């Protein structure tokens, strides 16, 4: 039993943290996160050069990671820095490309940017509920594709002979409608209308489910990083801000709420560690549900304990708060995953 990161991961996380604190200071982040293309191309290149994309695949696929704890090490740093770069898509694409036997070098080098297109407007979060039909050409609609606004290649699910298949669609050959997200970063709609597609995996149900669970784990880790930041920032504020002649951190009602916040964060961190260790659907669902609920609570409490200042665009906390609330809706919200766990009792 050992809860220390391995030296390799620690080094990767440290150098990633250093790069992000140098390059993604909150002002820069806010500038690039809220204006098209909702990311920083140079920042993306720097991240790729650092080699973090190799963390998304195991050695047998040419990578240098691929385990749950690799995702955890990377995304916790991304969350702490509120980095808007489209890494979620890469994290989900890597195992799918590996399963398809495709070349991962463009993903590792950052030359290609992948996005996973699964959700449909009337079937969010559940790939099996989509209705797009598979074939040499695809027709249908995919929605809320994270990082889709700058993707060079989409991995698209579609039904083929009653099964879920996975296709590759080139961005340049598709109708892509980009949009910015209220919490920073971008996404896209993909309008498929006889769009050329290359079959990657014929029976992709399990592979896609597993890739989505990797994405969920990444989001949990991102949330943990961002929550730590919010907690530390709120604690500093309570120690420095005075009201009625004393630091507001001296008020017991606020102290107890801080303890509750911290306890909830430690619970969220713990279940994320468990999900990273187990890498199964049920545990990931537990983690995504618990983390989604805790993240919203932390966001709301951090704002409330700050008072007005926490409501302002200028104060970095507000952007962390938005991210923590909004990531719940990515790849299935808390109630979706609660129902997923509950269904296993039946």
């Amino acid at each position: 039993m050992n809860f220390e990161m391995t030296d390799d991961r620690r080094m990767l996380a440290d150098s990633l943290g250093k790069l992000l604190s140098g390059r993604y200071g909150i002002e820069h982040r806010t500038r690039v996160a809220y204006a098209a293309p909702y990311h920083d191309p140079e920042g993306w290149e720097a991240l790729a050069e650092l080699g973090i994309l190799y963390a998304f695949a195991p050695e047998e696929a040419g990578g240098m990671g691929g385990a749950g704890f690799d995702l955890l090490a990377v995304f916790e740093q991304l969350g702490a820095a509120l980095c808007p770069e489209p890494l979620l898509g890469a994290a989900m694409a890597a195992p799918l490309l590996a399963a398809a036997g495709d070349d991962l070098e463009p993903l590792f080098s950052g030359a290609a940017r992948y996005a996973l297109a699964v959700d449909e407007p009337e079937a969010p979060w559940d790939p099996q509920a989509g209705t797009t039909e598979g074939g040499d050409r695809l027709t249908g609609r995919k929605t809320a594709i994270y990082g889709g606004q700058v993707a060079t290649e989409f991995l698209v699910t579609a039904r083929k002979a009653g099964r879920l298949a996975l296709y590759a669609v080139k961005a340049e050959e598709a109708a892509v409608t980009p949009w910015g997200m209220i919490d920073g970063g971008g996404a896209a709609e993909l309008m498929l209308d006889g769009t050329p597609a290359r079959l990657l995996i014929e029976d992709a149900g399990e592979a896609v489910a597993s890739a989505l669970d990797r994405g969920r784990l990444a989001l949990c880790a991102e949330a943990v990083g961002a929550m730590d930041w919010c907690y530390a920032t709120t604690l500093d504020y309570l120690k420095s801000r005075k009201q009625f002649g004393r630091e507001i951190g001296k008020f017991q009602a606020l102290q107890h709420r801080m303890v509750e916040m911290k306890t909830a964060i430690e619970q969220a961190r713990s279940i994320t560690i468990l999900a990273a260790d187990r890498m199964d659907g049920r545990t990931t669902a537990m983690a995504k549900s618990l983390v989604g609920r805790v993240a919203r609570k932390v966001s709301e409490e951090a704002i409330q304990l700050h008072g007005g200042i926490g409501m302002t665009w200028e104060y970095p906390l507000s952007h962390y708060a938005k991210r923590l609330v909004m990531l719940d809706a990515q790849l299935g919200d808390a109630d979706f995953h609660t129902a997923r766990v509950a269904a296993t009792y039946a």
Partner: protein
Amino acid sequence: MDLSYSPQEQAFQAEVRQFLADELPGDIAERVKAGGEVSKEDTERWHAILQSRGWLAQTWPEAYGGPEWGPVERHIFDEEAARAYAPRILPFGLQMLGPVLIKFGSDEQKAHYLPRILNGTDWWCQGYSEPGAGSDLASLKTRAVRDGDHYVVNGQKTWTTLGQYADWIFCLVRTDASGKPQEGISFLLIDMKTPGIEVRPIRLIEGGHEVNEVFFTDVRVPVENLVWKENDGWTVAKYLLTHERTGIAGVGFSIAAFERVKALAERTTRGGKRLIDDPLFAARLAEVEMDLEAMKIFNLRMLAEAQRVGHPGVETSMLKIRGTEVRQALNDLYRRALGPAAAVMPGEAPAGNAALLAPEDEGAAASYFNNRKISIFGGSNEIQKNILTKAMLEL
């Protein structure tokens, strides 16, 4: 017990409803329903319509041009207006300064300022909060030093709502720093065009601009702009903070918000099933509805009590707390009901074929974030709990 309105109140309710149906411009109601910011022009149009009916300055006595409604009439109007998606009446001139001038102002001040509020000549804003004095208002630091027949004002105000449009600001300033914090405060009226005033926008969490910082550098204010006595502005401030507390629960807003969520869940499909038929979502909605239904009655109980004794009780602080909790819970459900589409930045949503959501739902997440303010501004919920502890629990 009798939970229904009296025949007179019912007639009044019908009258309000008819008025809203006839007079509220449809384009304005559409914009309010979509949850976007209401423009200055929309507000001014609506104020003028209300004034032509004599319903603008609802709390003012007839002698000053108001209908002097009691708490129940005001509640009926608020609830009907919210259901009809009318814009809110801006409180600064009408609900805050007006009653203060009527109670504490000189005859000259009343004669000059009150008509200009009614006819829309002056747009007022509020200069209370300061960077170091939010909930702890008495610790304010903006100084006004007497210099002949002027005060010279230096300092900074913040959270000044819609200050960017304002012609005038009413301010609490410190005219004496030698005594207790509550002593030595005065209530001043300041023309926003006076040299030395600078308004800087504060952008809020969701990106909107509704509040400002206001900086004062050697701003010269004529002494006749002092309301009430020098150094006794705390009396005025307390009056303003405590007398206008009906409507604090925002029941009308919550009713409208509940209807919106329910309608959305009815037309939203997830995996072949309507969201409203999802047992977990429906249960969460039902629990909020119960809280809302209870709060409506709680609110009426407080109104009946206010009508009976002539002023609202300290229990209104409970309504403020629960009212914000219910509204925020509904904002939260609304955002969640939209699923991944809620993430779109308002104003940047794809249109046409690629549309993610109905235009009226585009502001759901922004409203959720913006409405985190309602448990902070106007006396945070923590301050309300402290007030209740002292006044009601006597702890």
